[in-house]
C-alpha cells in the first residue's frame, strides 16, 4: 500500500507491514495531508464543572439503590406501618428552596464583584453567608423532625418505614453537610480573593442538586411511607 509523506522534501515513506495482510489495518485518524494540525476542540470545561456532575451521578446512584431497597422491602411486607411525616419537613423544604434562591443571588453579586464592577453595597459574600445559614437551619430542622418522630416512639429499628425515613434523611443530611463545607470553602476563597468561577459554579450546582434531591425524597417518603 503506497504511502506519501508530507511536508514535501522528506523521503518517501515505506510501509513496512508484511504484504500478505489484508485491509488497511483499521488506520484511522490520520492527520490530513498538507493541512494544519487536525482541529481539536481547544476549549475543555473546567475540571470542577465536570467533576461535580460526575459526583452528582454517583450520589444519584446511591439514592436510586436506596429507593429500590425501599420499594422491594415495602412490597409484600406484613410489618409495614404508615409513618406520617413530621410537618416541620415542609418548612425545612421551604428553607432549602430559599437557600437556593439566596445562592443564585450571591452568584450574581460575586460575578459582578469578580468582574470588577464596583460593589454596590456591602460584602459580596453576605448572600453566601445567608445560604450557609439557611443550610444549617435546614439541618437543624431535620434534627427537630427526628426528635418529633422519636417522640412518637418511632426510632430507627421500630419498623421498616421508620428505618427508611431515618436512612434517607440521614443520607441526605450527610451529603448536605458536605455541601456546607464546600460553601464554607467558597466563602473563604472569596474573602481571600482567590475564588475561581468554576469553584463557585460547581458548588452551586451541587447545592441545587441537594435541593432537587430533597424534593424527590420528600415526595418519595410521602408516597411510600
Amino acid at each position, binding site marked *: 500500500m503506497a504511502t506519501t509523506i508530507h511536508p514535501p522534501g522528506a523521503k518517501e515513506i515505506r510501509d513496512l507491514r508484511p504484504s500478505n495482510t489484508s485491509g488497511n489495518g483499521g488506520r*484511522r485518524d490520520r492527520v490530513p495531508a498538507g493541512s494544519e494540525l487536525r482541529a481539536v476542540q481547544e476549549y475543555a470545561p473546567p475540571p470542577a464543572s465536570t467533576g461535580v456532575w460526575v459526583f452528582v451521578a454517583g450520589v444519584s446512584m446511591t439514592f436510586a439503590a436506596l429507593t429500590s431497597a425501599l420499594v422491594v422491602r415495602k412490597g409484600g411486607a406484613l410489618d409495614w406501618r404508615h409513618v406520617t411525616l413530621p410537618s416541620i419537613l415542609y418548612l425545612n423544604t421551604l428553607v432549602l428552596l430559599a437557600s437556593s434562591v439566596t445562592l443564585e443571588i450571591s452568584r450574581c453579586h460575586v460575578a459582578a464583584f469578580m468582574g470588577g464592577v464596583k460593589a454596590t453595597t456591602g460584602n459580596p459574600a453576605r448572600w453566601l453567608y445567608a445560604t450557609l445559614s439557611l443550610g444549617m437551619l435546614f439541618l437543624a430542622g431535620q434534627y427537630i423532625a427526628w426528635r418529633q418522630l422519636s417522640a412518637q416512639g418511632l426510632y430507627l429499628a421500630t419498623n421498616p418505614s421508620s428505618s427508611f425515613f431515618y436512612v434517607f434523611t440521614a443520607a441526605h443530611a450527610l451529603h448536605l453537610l458536605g455541601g456546607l463545607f464546600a460553601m464554607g470553602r467558597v466563602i473563604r476563597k472569596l474573602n481571600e480573593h482567590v475564588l475561581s468561577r468554576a469553584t463557585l459554579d460547581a458548588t452551586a450546582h451541587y447545592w441545587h442538586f441537594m435541593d432537587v434531591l430533597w424534593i424527590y425524597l420528600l415526595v418519595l417518603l410521602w408516597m411510600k411511607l
Partner: protein
Amino acid sequence: MHDMSAPAHAAQAPTGFLSKHVFSLDHKVIGKQYYGLALLAAIIGMFLSWVMRIHLGWTSFAIPGLHFLSKNGAPGDVMTPEYYLQLMTMHGTIMVFFVLTTAPFAAFGNFFLPIQVGAEDMPFPHFNMMSFWITFVSFVVMVSSFFVADGPTLGGWTQYAPLSAMGSVTGPGQGLGVVLWASSIAIFCIGQLLGSLNFITTTLDMRTKGMSLWRMPLTTWAWFITSIMGLTAFAVLMPACILLILDHVAGTSFFVPSNLVVNDQLQPHSGGSTLLWQHLFWFFGHPEVYIAIVPAMGIVSHILMANIRRPLLSHRILVYSMGAVAVLSYMVYGHHMFVSGMNPISSIAFSFPTLIITIPATIIVLIWLGSLYGARMRLNTACLFSLGMISMFITGGISGFFLAQPSLDIMLHATYFVVGHFHFVMAVSAMFGIFAGTYFWFPKMYGRMMNDTLGKIHFWLTFVGAYCIFMPFHYLGLASNVRRYQAFVDDYLQPLIPVHRFITVAAIATGLVQLIFLYNLIHSRFWGKPAPDNPWEATSLEWSTSSPPPFDNFGGKLPVVYHDPYQYGIEGSTGDYVMQTDPQQIQTQGDEA
C-alpha cells in the same frame, strides 16, 4: 482571576519524605502505592488459597503454625470447618477488591492515564491521595477481622443474607466479623468513587492539544469506561453495606425475614427481604467483574500493538465493544441468581442479555486473534503475558456460555464449574494482564529494565500452572462437586479427592513460581539495566517522556499530539513507527482523512 482550576504542578516538586513518598499528590506515586497494596493483598490472598487447598486435599492435616492465626479456628493447627469458610471468604474478598480492582485500574490507571492524555496530573490531586489512603484504611479494617475474637466473617465474598445479617448466632465471625467486612467495603467504595471522579474528569477535561478522544490509547479508553462502571456500581454497594451494618448494630430488618429459627432460637427480626441483598449486591457485582477485566483488555490491546508492530484490526470497534460490555453488564446481574428463588421469567430476562454480552466480548477476542494473524511478533515477556491473557479469557469465556443458560445453571450453580469459570475469565486473565502491564511499564515507572529471561520462565511456568490448577475445576463441577465445602465426606465425592490433591500441588507449585517474579521485581528495581525512554518503540505519550517521568510528567512542556497511537508498521523518523508527538504528517492511500 482565571476560570481553569490550577493544575497540581503549578508549584514545584514537593520536598520532604512524607509529602514526596507517603502523602503524595503526584498521581505516579499514588499509582505505585496502589500497586504495592495490590501486591501485598495478592500475597495474602494466595497464602489463604494455599491453606484452603491443603485442607481440601487433606482435611485433617495439621498445617504448621495455623493456630497462631486463630486459636479457635485452628486448634492444634487443624482447620475447623467454619474457619475454612472464613478463610475462603477473605480469599475472595481480598483478591476481588484489593487485587483485581486495585492493580489494573487504580495502580496502572493512576500512573499512566494522565501521562497518556498529556496532562501534568489529575485535576483533583487531594482527592486522589485520599482515595489511596481510604483504600488502605479499608484494607486494614478488612485484615483486622482476622484478629478479632471470633475471626472474620464466613459468608463468602457475596455475604448473602440472611446468614450475613443475623449476627453471631449464625456462626463464628458473623457478628463483629461481618460488621468489619461491611465497614471495610463501604470505606473501599468511597475510595473508588473518589478515584473514578479523577479518572473521568482527567479523560474529559485534561487532554493535551491534539489529543482528541479517538486519539487516546486503548488503555485510556479502558480506564475511562471502567471508571464510569466504578462510579455507578460502587455507589450502589455502599448503601447496601450500610443497610447490612444497620441490620447488625441497629436492630433493623432490611434483609432478615420473619420467623427464622437459628440454633433453636427464634430470631427477633421480621419482614426483611433476603433477595433484596442479592439484587443490590449483584447489581454491583456483575459490573465489578468487568471493572476487573476491562482494564486488562485495554492493557493487552496496547501491549499487543507494540509487539506485533502493526495496528489492530479495528480500534473503534474495540472501543465500542468495551463500551457495549460495560453497558450490558448492568443487565445481566441476575444470572448469579437463577436458583435464588426469584421469578423464573426473570431468569429468561437475565439469560438473554448474558448471551448477548458474549457478542462484544467475542468481537474483542476476534480482533485480537485477527490482528495476530500473519504478524511478526516480538515475543518479550509482556507480549507473552498478553497472549496468555487472551488464552485464559477464551477458556473462561467458553464455560460462561454454559452457565448463562438457566436450565444448565440449575445443575452447575454452586459447583466447581462456576469457580473454574470465574477464576479463568476474571482472576487469572486479569492477573496475566497485571503481569503484562508490569513487564511492559516497569521500565517507564522505575527507569530500569526487568530481566526478560526470568520473565519468560515466570510466564511459562505460571501459564502451565494456571491451567493445571483451574482446568480440573470444570471436570469437578460437571461431576457435581459442590463449592464452598470444607471437606468431601459424601460417597460420590470420594473419587474426586485425588483431583483436589493434584490441584493443591499445582497451586502451591504455581504460587512458588511467583517468587521468580518477586525476585525479578525487587532486583530490577535497584539493580536492573537502566531503561531508555522508549525501550519497546511504542507510540503513546508515556514513551515520549523520560524513564521515569519527571515530576510534572513532561518536563514543563506539555506535548502536542499529531497522530493516533496506532502508527506501527510505517517508517518514521525513529523506526517502524511514528510517535503521537511526532510532527511528521503521514497519509495512507485509501485511508479516511
